[in-house]
């Protein structure tokens, strides 16, 4: 998928001015946060599970190659195929080859962020193969030619009215006078439309929430059941997964599943959690004739062993997005690529290059709410700070900022000079504000005063007053106001 992360500031402006988006984002803030909170409160062991999950993932990453090879061996033992792809182009070509060999014209898709990452839909279309998104949210945005704006709720930025408009525009064979005021009627329409596509697809492409080495299985987690129809009905099932998805055993899988739905939607368990292993067995009446797992690297192996490795613990629950005040303000598209919110800000520079996503790690107050809710305890603020350090070292920080920081550091390193400057500054700003006590505008501080007043300093610094009181009266300083 083409990234627009380097136009973050423009993207933000558009997002803040978009009233419909702002209305839609209001739902995110209220619903997801409340539901997760209730689910967590309902499981006393939740914090212990977070810690155990972090340890598990770290253990796997410390020996990632071994676990991936164990997974591969098991898949092959069950009659499936594993394809290792170093980058997006390799993955696209691999998927195309499998589709061509199957004589595929039509491909149904379950939700897959890896699919977005490699831009598989556009690529298939360019090669005369029709991709059909089946997750309701993905279907909606496919019709609207938009990318997803959230990890698990891809159409969270779309209002009901917009869904109706889109369905009326695209489903032209249906009665124009039909009543679509109820959301259930929209769902029923999508269900009916997609039922036929499910039944006539040649190939089904899904993602994989996890890969289980013990059994050679890919795992998908949905509420709709679209992933299951996608992978059961066609002749071929392709599961797309990144290298970090592997877990050793079914019990390890269970640990992560106990964290996933609760963190994502506040459910105890998503409606459909499915393990797929190899093609249909000899006497099965349904299931695909061929099973392929495409394992994608795309920059992740480079993160192993670095301070960015913790990002590979991510289980794509979306809790960080749901709790991020920046995401609440600007939504997912502003981030300009596949992954949004705190994980997007931290991961995107690693996958597409820091110079193409320089704003993302900076657009954060490092408030830490993401890390507090991350089921994998990923130290997101620390990682964002690491990116800022790298930007500084590589000279990507804007010159004005560098100069300002350098100036401040110089002053802070020289206390006597600092006292002088602080004293002058306090007097100056206090004088400018006069008896009003605040400034409506201030040169060089337009970013602040454009939207809020600047309370004025009282006129003298603490250190000056403290020194005065100590020399002036002796004894205790600070009892009562001046």
């Amino acid at each position, binding site marked *: 998928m083409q990234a627009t992360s380097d136009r973050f500031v423009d993207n933000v402006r558009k997002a803040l001015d978009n009233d419909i988006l702002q209305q839609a984002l209001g739902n995110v803030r209220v619903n997801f946060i409340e539901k997760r909170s209730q689910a967590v409160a309902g499981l006393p*062991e939740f914090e212990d599970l977070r810690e155990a999950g972090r340890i*598990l993932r770290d253990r796997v990453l410390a020996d990632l190659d071994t676990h991936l090879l164990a997974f591969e061996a098991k898949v092959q033992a069950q009659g499936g195929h594993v394809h290792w792809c170093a980058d997006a182009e390799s993955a696209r070509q691999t998927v195309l080859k499998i589709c061509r060999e199957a004589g595929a014209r039509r491909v149904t898709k379950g939700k897959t962020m890896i699919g977005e990452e490699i831009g598989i839909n556009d690529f298939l279309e360019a090669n005369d193969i029709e991709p059909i998104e089946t997750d309701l949210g993905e279907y909606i945005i496919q019709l609207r030619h938009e990318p997803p704006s959230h990890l698990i709720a891809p159409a969270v930025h779309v209002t009901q009215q917009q869904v109706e408009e889109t369905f009326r525009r695209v489903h032209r064979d249906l009665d124009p006078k039909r009543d679509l005021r109820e959301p259930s009627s929209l769902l029923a329409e999508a269900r009916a439309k997609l039922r036929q596509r499910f039944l006539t697809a040649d190939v089904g492409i899904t993602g994989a929430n996890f890969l289980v080495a013990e*059994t050679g299985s890919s795992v998908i987690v949905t509420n*709709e059941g679209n992933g299951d129809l996608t992978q059961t009905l066609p002749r071929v099932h392709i599961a797309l997964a990144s290298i970090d998805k592997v877990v050793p055993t079914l*019990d390890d899988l269970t640990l992560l599943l106990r964290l996933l739905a609760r963190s994502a939607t506040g459910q105890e368990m998503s*409606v459909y*959690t499915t393990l797929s*292993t190899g093609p249909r067995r000899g006497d099965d009446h349904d299931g695909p004739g061929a099973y392929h797992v495409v394992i994608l690297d795309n920059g992740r192996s480079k993160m192993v062993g670095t301070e960015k490795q913790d990002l590979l613990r991510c289980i794509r629950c979306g809790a960080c997005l749901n709790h991020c005040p920046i995401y609440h303000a600007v939504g997912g598209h502003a981030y300009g690529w596949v992954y949004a919110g705190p994980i997007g800000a931290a991961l995107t520079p690693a996958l597409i290059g820091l110079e193409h996503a320089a704003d993302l790690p900076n657009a954060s107050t490092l408030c830490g709410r993401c890390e507090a809710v991350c089921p994998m305890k990923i130290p997101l603020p620390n990682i964002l700070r690491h990116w800022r350090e790298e930007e500084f070292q590589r000279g990507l920080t804007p010159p004005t900022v560098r100069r300002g920081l350098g100036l401040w550091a110089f002053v802070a390193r020289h206390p006597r000079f600092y006292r002088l400057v602080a004293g002058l500054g306090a007097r100056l700003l206090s004088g400018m504000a006069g008896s009003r006590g605040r400034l409506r505008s201030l040169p060089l501080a337009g970013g602040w005063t454009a939207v809020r007043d600047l309370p004025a300093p009282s006129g003298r610094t603490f250190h000056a007053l403290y020194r005065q009181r100590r020399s002036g009266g002796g004894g205790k300083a600070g009892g009562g106001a001046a």
Partner: protein
Amino acid sequence: MSDRDAILAAIRTRKRPAAHGEPAVAPVPARGRIDGAARIDLFVRMAEAAAASVKRLSSPEEVPEAVAQYLAAQNLPARLVLASDPKVANLPWEDHPMIAHRTGPATGQDHAALTTAFAGVAETGTLALVSSPETPTTLNFLPEHSLVLVSAEDICGTYEELWRRLRLATDDGVYWPRTVNLITGPSRSADIEQKLLMGAHGPVKLHILLIDP
């Protein structure tokens, strides 16, 4: 160098031991670690909380009657597709000749299906269904109404117990099924302005027939 070699090499040169030592055994939530009637009650409570309906029966012979009642209550034609598993196919359907039935995988035309679960998990009110020639996966997804038979003795407390049973039944993974479905309630979506709607692509209703003598 193949992509596979390149990826493995990249990981091998970079991987570092984890900072912490031997991991403690992950905690198994206390909720599912119960037995007997309390376990069955938990299963029913959690399944119902996930919008499944549960009908407790004292013997398998009561199933066809329960199915007839369900279809009537839902205003459905008295017709469904059955799993060919003996637990389902060998029930006394001949006592209910009004119910038209066939066995096999589901097609796009079936309104209702009855299959049997490998087990249940009380911890979350979840059914574990396993693909086989006798229990095809399409029965769980294509019809609007999914009816599933499960015995109380097959209700596990926790997922750990479920996997133990499944490993045993598959000769420690040698005969691992193509598909294992963990199903908790009927299909739903909240993709339209966060409004919860049932019956997205999978069944609109999940009706559990629990044999609890």
